[in-house]
């Protein structure tokens, strides 16, 4: 059998439990240990080369001219003065690149540079390549753009009120549903009327979660090089080189074919979702390089990073929940309104995500979700850490707290009584496997002394509890295809070096190291000795990108398969040489040996040479695609995952009742990680999430001045407030859980879930401290103070929204729950399928969701 045959060919999906979750901790040499990140030394000594560190001979510098208007028609652009400037190599306008792009196939609504209209202050209008940045900047100032203002839409109420019959100009886009609605979704699981009918208590609450941005340390930068052989190389600070490759191939179709485009993702100086879309600046420098024959680099200013955005959607929510006297959730009717900003971005997925994960923590018997996304004249929103789920999670966790108080239960009890059982299906057909939320709750409650302190602390001091869950990678890719989500290739050298090739992108989370740990574990090698080659579309097999907390699980599983195949290629030849049965061959400490007599064996390099002598060049591949989801209804593609992480947090607050100013002295957090591949990196992800969540809870907001032409109020790192080390509390972290059969060695995600409980836990703690409900994020001192003043005046001590826009929802897609005997399909399609099955004599109904 040749290496090729052994190195590939198995099905993409492997049965659950084939990812070594069952190996005892004691048998693992690398996994579960706090190894140094393989690139840590370069990062901390400043030697990592980020995109802006790149320099090429003859390089030109690019600057973008951005719209000064929030919504306007472009009447005229005259770039002649700029083109005539000394030192200017090329000026690009919208008409030069007429093909649209966008991250999702359903919203290809962006032009590299605006052609006929601009949709927010900061929309790119022209691009200049020049001898230096100053010249490019001056040239941009010389481009004359004449605008004709169009009606400004900066909030969901105005967007909802856009008359569908009104002239075309009132719409920001001419696609989507009517007016300025981008999406309207309506999904009903179970029998809501019955659920509410059986409830002893029904609460309706309104919540608002303000938008905020990723604030990565590194501003986006890209270097594009079009070489004399007609090949284009784009090196960029992107989390998704594969998707950028697709966008470049589409927009530049007339200039360079896909197979001549190479995208290399540079190490990211922070991403958090903000570098997951293909961006105008990336395509513009590629085209400028084609035009000028020079390498062209662009580095955004911090202000431009605010405009590039794609951050947390502002979401207005209404949640009506029905529970029994003992607090069991009978029905949940949840409505979300997403202020999407000027473009589609990931917005369709974001909309579904605001309804996807409500049911994976607490069992909801009947569930109704309606979500609308609106276009507004603001920087486009998209995915930020937690993508669409922190907003509804905030609402749900605060509402649980309110229910507990109203029913005379405690916040621990009501949550634990409602926990989703392990290995079960939710009302909306999410498959939950291992589930250790109960243990997370127990850990933070015991560790913080919650029950001895809740409702018992002096006025001004409080504790709050909240929980969350997040997916370990989206079950479906962004564009429909049946190929793997992640691929890994191994090349084994005669020196004993193993090179791991994978399309994944390290955004600081340590994904390169994960590949080294997994391969090192299987082949018995020191992870620091491996060569990891990633995120280069010419050299590495596709991995979809660093988003949706998918990388450890998916690349880990793919690497595991590739490494096991390499092991299986080598082991028989060593066994033959040693004259022992094949099942006695072990790999550890850089040796391959007889496990019954470890002295009998050889260095790994010798084993590779032995195998190469017999088989020829040694290389293997591994791939991974998540398991099929039972959620087969339209819209069920968002939410399913191979496994879910769970988190519980207790937050302490100290409120000054005279001002509303509060501090957070301590946070306790427990995270169900399954099994950590590297507990140190997991802790880092958990604590970083808590920090980011605290910023969202306390202060971060994307604010615009709707009465001043729709400008962003504070596009700078000084004025957009994010916590400093001074605000960071003492943090007590626990990792809990049992290895999950779908994760590599039992791992789950860590990068996003732990952010989610922080905002509601702060809100609940503020209530415990001063009796004020702030049903809004951020929870600023002004709002706490307003609540205290309202209480003083005898009014309801609550600050938050009281209504949602009127929406004429499309008819609900009704899906029967698993306990109603549903099939995961809409009722309508169930019947169609049944009829079709009868006609086909009962053929298989296996089909993937959309």
């Amino acid at each position, binding site marked *: 059998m040749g290496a090729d045959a052994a190195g590939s060919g198995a099905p993409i999906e492997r049965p659950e439990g084939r990812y070594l979750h069952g190996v005892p901790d004691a048998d693992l040499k690398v996994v579960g240990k706090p190894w140094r990140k393989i690139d840590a030394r370069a990062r901390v000594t400043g030697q990592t080369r980020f995109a802006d560190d790149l320099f090429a001979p003859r390089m030109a510098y690019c600057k973008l001219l951005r719209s*000064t208007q929030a919504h306007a028609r472009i009447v005229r652009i005259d770039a002649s003065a700029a083109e005539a400037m000394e030192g200017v190599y090329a000026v690009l306008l919208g008409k030069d690149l007429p093909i649209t792009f966008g991250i999702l196939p359903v919203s290809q609504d962006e032009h590299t540079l605006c052609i006929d209209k601009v949709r927010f202050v900061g929309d790119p209008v022209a691009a200049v390549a020049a001898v230096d940045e100053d010249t490019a900047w001056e040239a941009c100032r010389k481009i004359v753009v004449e605008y004709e203002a169009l009606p400004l839409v900066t909030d969901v109420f105005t967007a909802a009120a856009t008359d569908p019959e009104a002239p075309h100009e009132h719409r920001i886009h001419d696609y989507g549903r009517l007016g300025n609605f981008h999406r309207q979704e309506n999904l009903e699981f179970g029998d809501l009327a019955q659920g509410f009918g059986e409830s002893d208590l029904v609460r309706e609450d309104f919540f608002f979660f303000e938008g905020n941005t990723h604030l990565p340390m590194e501003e986006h930068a890209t270097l594009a090089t079009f070489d004399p052989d007609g090949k284009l190389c784009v090196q960029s600070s992107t989390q998704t080189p594969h998707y950028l490759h697709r966008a470049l191939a589409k927009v530049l179709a007339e200039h360079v074919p896909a197979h001549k485009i190479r995208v290399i993702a540079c190490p990211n100086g922070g991403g958090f979702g903000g570098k997951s879309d293909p961006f105008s600046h990336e395509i513009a420098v590629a085209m400028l390089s084609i035009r000028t024959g020079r390498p062209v680099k662009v580095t955004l200013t*911090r*202000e431009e990073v605010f405009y590039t955005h794609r951050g947390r959607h502002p979401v207005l929510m209404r949640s009506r929940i029905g529970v029994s006297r003992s607090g069991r959730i009978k029905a949940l009717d949840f409505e979300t309104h997403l202020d999407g900003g000027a473009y589609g971005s990931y917005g369709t997925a974001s909309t579904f995500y605001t309804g996807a994960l409500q049911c994976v923590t607490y069992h909801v018997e009947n569930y109704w979700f309606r979500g609308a996304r609106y276009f507004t004249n603001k920087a486009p929103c998209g995915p930020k850490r937690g993508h669409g789920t922190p907003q509804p999670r905030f609402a749900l966790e605060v509402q649980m707290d309110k229910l507990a108080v109203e029913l005379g239960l405690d916040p621990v009890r009501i949550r634990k009584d409602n926990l989703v059982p392990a290995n079960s299906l939710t009302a909306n057909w999410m498959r939950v496997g291992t589930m250790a939320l109960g243990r997370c709750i127990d850990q933070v409650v015991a560790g913080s002394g919650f029950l001895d302190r809740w409702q018992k602390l002096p006025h001004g001091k409080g504790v709050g509890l909240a929980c969350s869950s997040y997916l370990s990678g989206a079950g479906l890719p962004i564009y429909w295809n049946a190929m793997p989500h992640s691929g890994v290739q191994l090349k084994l050298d005669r020196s004993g070096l193993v090179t791991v090739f994978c399309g994944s992108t390290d955004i600081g989370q340590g994904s390169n190291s994960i590949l080294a740990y997994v391969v090192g574990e299987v082949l018995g090698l020191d992870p620091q000795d491996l060569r990891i080659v990633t995120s280069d579309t010419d050299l590495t097999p596709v991995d979809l990108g660093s988003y949706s907390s998918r990388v450890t699980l998916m690349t880990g599983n793919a690497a595991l398969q590739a490494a096991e195949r390499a092991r299986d290629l080598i082991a028989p030849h060593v066994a033959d040489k040693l004259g022992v049965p094949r099942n006695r061959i072990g790999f550890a400490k850089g040796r391959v040996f007889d496990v019954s007599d470890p002295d009998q064996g050889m260095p790994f390099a010798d084993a590779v040479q032995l195998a190469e002598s017999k088989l020829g060049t040694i290389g293997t591949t591994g791939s991974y695609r998540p398991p099929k989801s039972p959620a087969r209804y339209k819209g069920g593609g968002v939410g399913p995952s191979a496994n879910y992480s769970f988190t519980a947090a207790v937050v302490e607050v100290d409120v000054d009742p005279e*001002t509303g*100013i509060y501090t957070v002295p301590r946070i306790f957090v427990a995270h169900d990680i399954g099994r950590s591949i590297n507990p140190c990196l997991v802790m880092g992800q958990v604590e970083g999430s808590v920090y980011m969540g605290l910023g969202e809870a306390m202060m971060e907001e994307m604010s615009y001045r709707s009465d001043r032409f729709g400008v962003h109020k504070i*596009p*700078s790192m000084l004025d957009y*407030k994010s916590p400093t080390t001074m605000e960071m509390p003492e943090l007590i972290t626990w990792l809990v859980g049992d290895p999950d059969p779908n994760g590599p060695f039992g791992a789950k995600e860590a990068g996003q879930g732990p952010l989610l409980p922080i905002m509601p836990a702060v809100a609940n703690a503020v209530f415990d401290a001063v009796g004020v409900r702030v049903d809004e994020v951020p929870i600023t001192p002004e709002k706490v*103070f307003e609540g205290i003043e309202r209480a003083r005046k005898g009014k309801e001590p609550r600050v938050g929204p009281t209504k949602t826009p009127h929406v004429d929802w499309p008819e609900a897609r009704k899906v029967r729950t698993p306990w109603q005997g549903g099939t995961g399909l809409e009722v309508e399609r169930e019947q169609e399928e049944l009829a079709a099955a009868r006609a086909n004599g009962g053929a298989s109904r296996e089909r993937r969701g959309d």
Partner: protein
Amino acid sequence: MLRLPKFSYHRPASGAEAVRIVAAHGGEARYVAGGTDLYPNMKRRVQRPGHVVALSRCQDLRGMRGEARSGVTIGAMTTLSAIEHDPRLRAEYPGFVHAASVVSTPLLRNMGTIGGNLLLDTRCNYYDQSHEWRESIDFCKKCDGSTCWVAPSSPRCWAVQSSDTVPLLCAIDASVTLLGADGERRVPLRALYRDDGIDFVQKRHEELLTALHLPATNGWRASYRKLRRRGSFDFPVLGVGACLSMDGDRVAELDVRIGGAGSWPIPAQKTVEMLRGAVLRFDDAASDELIRAAAQEAYKPTRAMDNTDLDAHWRKKMAPVFVARAIRDCLPGAPPRRDVLG
């Protein structure tokens, strides 16, 4: 990153030489001390001097002399860090040291000087923005435009006094030396500032602030209370300086200045009048009530507007709270200040 525009850079060796250079170039020239205020402003193109006159080599603008009994003189080029860590100042002028220590971040205090902090440009989030951003609002009255977007019908500019040291130094009645082409003059800080966002300092363009003079410590106590979002970085969006001398249990002299809530350090006149001669003790309910009632008078003169961080109405409501706290800090028996928020 935003880039600096081109300019000529001068490095004179003395204050007098610096003054000569600026006088020669007129409005085209500006002094730079630590550069933490000027350079960001230049990057945003709100200040565009063709000549930048660096004071870093002027030894005559450095150093400290004098003693607490008769007053201390601090060279304008003394960094805020040096003030923060000076053992004598910490012991004798704790209120001033506290105010200096809550300016921005340790890194910026290592660069920023006391002279620069006293002449900090007024701030406004319609003004502290890049050229491109300001183009979107057609610029503002303070730079390149004609409208004050904070109050479009107002004839004046409402940019905000944002130095942490100014309210406190006004309250303790410190003064400065200004060196001009025709010699030096000494000006009380209380007379240096004007209630205008653009023309906020009463000095001639070429006049160089060379030294700060702290008054003799003869029993007065001072405190600075700063309102800001975070425990670091942020400029004050309300900063109250108070100075109190007691005659036994009675208030002999009191001065309170409200910064970060108007274009100059606003004197809390009524509050001061109400408390003059009053009997005040620390940790005493009746005294606290008196102080609270008097501090309530600080609400009206506080001109918080929607051009800084945090809600303007709330900031205005916080003025009486912060004034009361600052006054209480000055009572004999009050503990020394260590907090960075409030």
